[in-house]
């Protein structure tokens, strides 16, 4: 019999909606792959911070002796070195979502495109507002990813007559989204649109807008593809006309191509870039997964 192939999967702990989705898809894929390929062993570990994730990498190698690593890095920069350490030990590396800061470390890169998420959102905003209006922005947690999204969004918006009244961090958290939006609503008598960037935040924003009774005045663009939000888009909710996809299922892609590399010996190297698809009432049914927790 063939030797067991061990794939380590290191992802952030489920601390908010999107990472929750990552966890869900990783677990589902783990089970499916194990069933399909009996000689495959998949070790799934989670971490609450970049430093902790570096720990899990050490553990995956020292304890589980992994042959391949699928990693969704907490943050690109701090994890580049620890991943490279594994690479030097001969571990096959698949990076998902956030690229490492050093070329050539990743064998496979399944890229979520944070720039695109910001850009697509911005482009929709410009189109829907007809190039002018007052908007507010709720950002995530201060991180590089958030910067990519925000900067790309602003690039698109900057040339137009769209005026960003203010932005605040909402930490990809519903309660923060609610509170920040409450205060924006109190502060600005006229808001034409809200870019919430994340569906968790958008949920909070919706409630704040409802409370203020200003549903007719504005619309909200979230992001990620949470099932509740996709459902609203499907139902052609005025408040949530679209969503921008940043599917947590990308971890499944990463795990699958990595598994493929070992079971088929096919040469699966290179980059897989996942689009930041704009979900509209027309295509929403394609992205609706009622069983997913996210």
């Amino acid at each position, binding site marked *: 019999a063939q030797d067991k192939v061990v794939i380590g999967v290191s992802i952030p702990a489920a*601390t908010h*909606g999107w990472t929750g989705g990552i966890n*869900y898809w990783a677990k589902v894929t783990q089970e499916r792959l194990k069933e399909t390929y009996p000689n495959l062993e998949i070790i799934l570990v989670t971490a609450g911070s970049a430093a902790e994730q570096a720990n899990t990498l050490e553990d995956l190698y020292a304890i589980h002796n992994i042959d391949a690593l699928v990693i969704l890095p907490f943050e690109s920069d701090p994890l580049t070195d620890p991943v490279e350490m594994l690479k030097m030990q001969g571990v096959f590396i698949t990076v998902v979502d956030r690229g490492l800061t050093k070329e050539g470390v990743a064998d496979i890169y399944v890229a979520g495109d944070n720039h695109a998420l910001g850009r697509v959102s911005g482009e929709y905003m410009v189109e829907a507002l007809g190039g002018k209006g007052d908007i507010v922005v709720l950002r995530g947690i201060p991180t590089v990813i958030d910067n990519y999204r925000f900067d790309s969004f602003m690039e698109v918006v900057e040339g137009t007559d769209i005026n960003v009244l203010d932005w605040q961090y909402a930490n990809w958290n*519903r309660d923060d989204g609610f509170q920040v939006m409450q205060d924006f609503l109190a502060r600005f008598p006229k808001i034409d649109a809200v870019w919430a960037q994340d569906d968790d935040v958008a949920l909070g924003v919706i409630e704040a807008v409802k409370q203020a009774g200003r549903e007719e005045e504005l619309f909200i663009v979230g992001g990620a593809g949470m099932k509740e939000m996709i459902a609203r888009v499907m139902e052609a909710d005025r408040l949530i006309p679209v969503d921008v996809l940043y599917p947590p299922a990308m971890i499944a892609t990463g795990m699958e191509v990595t598994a493929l590399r070992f079971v088929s010996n096919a040469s699966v190297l290179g980059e897989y870039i996942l689009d930041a698809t704009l979900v509209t009432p027309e295509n929403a049914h394609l992205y609706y997964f009622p069983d997913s927790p996210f």
Partner: protein
Amino acid sequence: MNHPTTDRQARLKQLGTRFSWQDIGPFAAVVALMILGTTINPTFLSMANLTNVFTRSAFTGIIAIGATFIIGTGSIDLSVGSMAAFNSGMMIIFMNYLVKTWGATWATILAAMGLAMVLGIVGGFVNGFVITKGRIESFIVTLGTMGIFRSLVTYLADGGTLSLNLSIRVLYRPVYYGTLWGIPIPLIVFGLVAVVGAILLNKTRFGRYVLAIGSNYDVAHYSAINVNRIRVLTYVLQGLCVAIATIIYVPRLGSASSTTGLGWELEAIAAVIIGGTAMKGGSARIWGTVAGAIIFSIIGNILNLSNVISQYLNGAVQGLIIIGAVLLQRTGKE
């Protein structure tokens, strides 16, 4: 022999709720912050904004009232935020389940509220029991249960979000968004909890024993106070407060996830201490705690109402204001 002078102060003391600079201090800080807020942005004083700010303070405020008793005995509870998340999750699951048989009725909601209470009491009891019977520092035990509750809600939500059935949500919504005599319901609940808390603390044997234990554990023991029982009771009370906070939290967003209630424990403890309760126990002030919770809420609001300073520095401004607010109290005391 000379008799105690029954001056006005002493008379006021007899009202059960005592007024002194220590109590006024936090409210002075509230007023100062409100002036600051108005200066930065006159919108601050709008009815809508003030209502938001005060209403928001209800969650941490209610939890902080429970924490006042715990800190009054010289202990700590780090698990409250996670417990709130877990309770929310359980309420949602329970309502989603009941709605299938009972429909979207008040019965369903009331049953879920009952469940929250039971869970709060049980959770608090477990904390208190392990702390007293195991003779372990409360910091460690509640750090442990903090992790446990948070994990459980993550597990229940499969890492994602637990969402309340839409039909119930419509029914339940007014509990957060509704008003009674023009006052938001969460504020009324907050007020009631504070009044009950103040009575418990100042007018009952339980409250007296709490302060006695915080003042000197050994003396309390030698005064025939069942120290362990009172300590467990403070944790049960804390659990109940968390449950009440949960009950008004769930209708706000109708969902719970692993991020729910993150950091509430620090906020609640800070509210208690800003309010003039000593970390080492022995003195506690419910109305100070109420002011402390409001202070927190106002600081957050002020930061969102202005963008003079880089948003990156919000945390710094918040930190400075917290320290400043407490310094202000201290200085006034001299």
